[in-house]
């Protein structure tokens, strides 16, 4: 059995860090795409399975009732459309997968099916669709709705949505393209069928008007912690992005997803569970600890950055709470329910300030030299059973990407924990290679 696990990168199409001292001109130029081209080429050189782009469709003004804090820091917005960036990244690379977030609540399904199919062609079979149902009423308002449907209904809709989209991809047989010069037949119409889909929430006649995607079904990725999310993930996803805290929770989560997948009649090995981490690397162990301490001190002094993030994702105005008290018990959200529940459980009485310091968007803390961190990752995977990690941009600049790609990755490769080349041309084939 292979000890190898997968690496992906998780981030957004946003400005880089701009006050870290290692930001070059990227924070000003990020919308020309060049930083992202360089980034994804670096990750391809480092044999990452894929890069995944998160997305959202709003300028949050939850924190303090104004967009001031969120725009001032430039974390949540501005944010470019990752769908428009993806073709450029595909053109600049050959093997790495590119997964793009698109919301089932806002995209017309036929349009999404065609866009993703087009991207799969443009990337020669390397695209993924990261399925989100969206969680912010503010985004819904941009699309002319007053609010999002309730959480569980969103998943019911998403279920139908994904069913419809896959049927659209399947509306062309793989051998529909015949190109018979003699008879003058480009496409054999008997291999292209309307789907006449009539669901509870969606209707579409079909067929799609474009060729079947090279992967047949582009890779589906998803992040879901709630029971509805887990059920959804185990039914459809090729890769589940997960944030359980600590190795036992990671293992519990993976076992659960695999059991659910098996219950859905799927081979559990066809669902990869990957955990979000943000390793802090140093020249020496002490150097890494120092960097961590510096980060914590910075957050303790200015916890707003973290609070703005929570305000945006949970749509709760954290500016109204006392920083040196725990989160009040009566706070509710219609957004990422599992995020709030996990937050409460994890915060466990911490003051908000200390919660900001302690909180990290990652499943486990990884601190040390590249070799030490590689060892920690290997040990964790041995206990959990698989399937890999998603590196989250922290900090979002070239220097950090270089530390991971040219420091951590060679250390993992030396231990035989990570691929040194791509076995296949398609994203899914690489994801399922081990």
């Amino acid at each position, binding site marked *: 059995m292979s000890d190898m696990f997968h690496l992906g990168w998780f981030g957004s*199409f946003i400005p880089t860090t*701009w*006050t870290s001292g290692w930001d070059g001109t990227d*924070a*000003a130029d990020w*919308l*020309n795409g060049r930083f992202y081209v360089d980034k994804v080429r670096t990750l391809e050189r480092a044999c990452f399975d894929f890069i995944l782009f998160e997305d959202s*469709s709003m*300028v949050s003004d939850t924190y303090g009732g104004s*967009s001031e804090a*969120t*725009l*001032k*820091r*430039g974390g949540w*917005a*501005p*944010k*470019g*459309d990752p*769908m*428009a*960036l*993806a*073709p*450029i990244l595909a*053109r*600049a690379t050959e093997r790495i997968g590119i997964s793009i977030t698109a919301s089932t609540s*806002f*995209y017309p399904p*036929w*349009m999404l099916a*065609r*866009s993703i*199919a*087009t991207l799969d*062609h*443009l990337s020669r079979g390397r695209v993924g669709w990261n399925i989100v149902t969206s969680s912010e009423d503010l985004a819904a*308002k*941009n*699309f*002319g709705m007053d609010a999002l449907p309730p959480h569980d209904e969103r998943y019911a809709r998403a279920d139908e949505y994904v069913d419809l989209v896959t049927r659209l991809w399947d509306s062309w047989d793989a051998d*529909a*393209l015949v*190109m018979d*010069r003699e008879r*003058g037949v*480009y*496409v054999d*119409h008997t291999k*292209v069928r309307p789907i006449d889909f009539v669901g509870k929430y969606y*209707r*579409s*006649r*079909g*067929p*799609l*008007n*474009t*060729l079947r995607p090279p992967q047949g079904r582009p890779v589906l990725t998803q992040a879901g912690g709630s029971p509805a999310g887990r059920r959804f993930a185990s039914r459809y996803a090729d890769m589940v992005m997960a944030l359980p805290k600590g190795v036992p929770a990671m293992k519990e989560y993976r076992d659960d997803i695999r059991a659910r997948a098996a219950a859905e009649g799927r081979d559990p090995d066809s669902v990869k569970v990957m955990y979000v981490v943000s390793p802090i690397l140093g020249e020496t162990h002490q150097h890494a600890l120092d960097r961590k301490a510096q980060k914590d001190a910075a957050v303790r002094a200015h916890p707003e950055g973290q609070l703005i993030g929570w305000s945006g994702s949970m749509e709760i105005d954290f500016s109204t709470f006392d920083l040196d008290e725990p989160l009040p018990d009566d706070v509710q959200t219609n957004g990422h329910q599992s995020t709030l529940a996990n937050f409460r459980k994890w915060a466990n009485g911490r003051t908000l300030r200390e919660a900001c310091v302690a909180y990290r968007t990652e499943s486990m803390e990884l601190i040390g030299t590249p070799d030490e961190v590689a060892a920690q990752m290997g040990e964790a995977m041995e206990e959990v059973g698989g399937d890999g990690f998603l590196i989250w941009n922290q900090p979002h600049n070239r220097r950090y990407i270089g530390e991971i790609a040219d420091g951590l990755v060679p250390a993992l490769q030396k231990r035989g924990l990570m691929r040194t080349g791509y076995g296949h041309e398609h994203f899914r084939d690489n994801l399922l290679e081990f």
Partner: protein
Amino acid sequence: MTTPVDQRFHLAWFKSFTPHDWRSTWSGSEERDWMNGDSHVDFLQALERARFDFLMLEDSLMVSDTYAGTAEASLAQGGYAPKGDPALLASMLLSETRRIGVIATMSSTFVPPWLLARMSATIDHLSGGRFGWNCVTSSENRAAQNFGMDALPPHDERYERAHEYVDLVTQLWDSWEDGAVVMDEESNTYVDHTKVHPIHFEGRWHRSRGPLNLPRPPQGHPVICQAGGSPAGKAFAAGNADVLLSLPKGLADMKRYRDDIRDLAEKAGRDPDDIKVMYIISPILADTDDEAREIQAAMNANVEAGIKAQMVNWSATMEIDFSRFDLDRPLPDDATTNGHQSTLSTFRRFAAGRTLREAFTAYRTEAIEVVGSPATAADTLQEAMEFVGGDGFLVMGPTNRRYVHEITEGLVPELQRRGLVRTEYAGAQLRDHLREF
């Protein structure tokens, strides 16, 4: 002292994200791989070398089965479908070029306005201001059915909706003031929130709170292109468009159409020079005039195949099943469409007193016929522009590499030698190109 008159006109190419000319002698080896983008990148680079203003990518959102009630003929031809998403291709193409613009078609009837505003703003940023949106209202019920509707809204209502849609989209683009990104280290401020405004748009058909979640596009508003020939379409275009793809045939109609649009634009309070009217041509070029005419004759000789191909396409765009009609009689009076109305009425005018066979044999999409050596073709274009007054041509033709190179390496240098088209881009953005002369 008088300055010489700038006689220059604009060139662009009109194409869909569909297979290249897969059956011709020069079809190459990309009939299968056209969707990976390679051949389109080469194509756009050729147009940029020839200093075209832009490539315009048409779109439609269905597999047509109107002709004889089946998709057979339409798919066999491979002209209408398969077709990839043009906005995504545009983004890739722009990343492989530096100056030329790309205009992608997106439907105001089917794409949520916020998505369109954001997608086009993003591509405009990624390309340094070289993106345009060809605003169509869509014309096929089959497309509507793909989006869960039974049928399209009626023709004129689609234009009313489109008016509101463009208003909303431009407000979203404008929801970030220029200079909102300040990156002030002192105050630790990346974006000045006082320069980013919700729009609280409440229209009859569309609503959106805004603001958009990214800075104002480099062009402010990406270029807007339009193709309306109906009265509603023309009024819409005169009010909103930077560039117009127009359908009239023959010099007199071309001139009348342009004068009309410029008049409407002026009445809408715009500088008429800010709207460029471009006419479709499909030049047939060869080493000598005789040879070009021989090629044309050979094309015309294959009448039956040509008629069938046209009828299949017309059936798709009009959603009228032309297979039902007797080819040796005129088009029945009761044939109507909710789709491309102006195209149908232009055709009716053209076909008056002709049988369908005669009409389809004679009908051309192009505004004027351009046949001959590059020098002769240049004469034709020069004379046309002198008569019409402006503003340029959209080439529509097979995109096999040989044909593309006949235009870009044959016709264009000849036009350049005469000072009729640009030899270098003056500006960096697409709108700069359009307003350069």
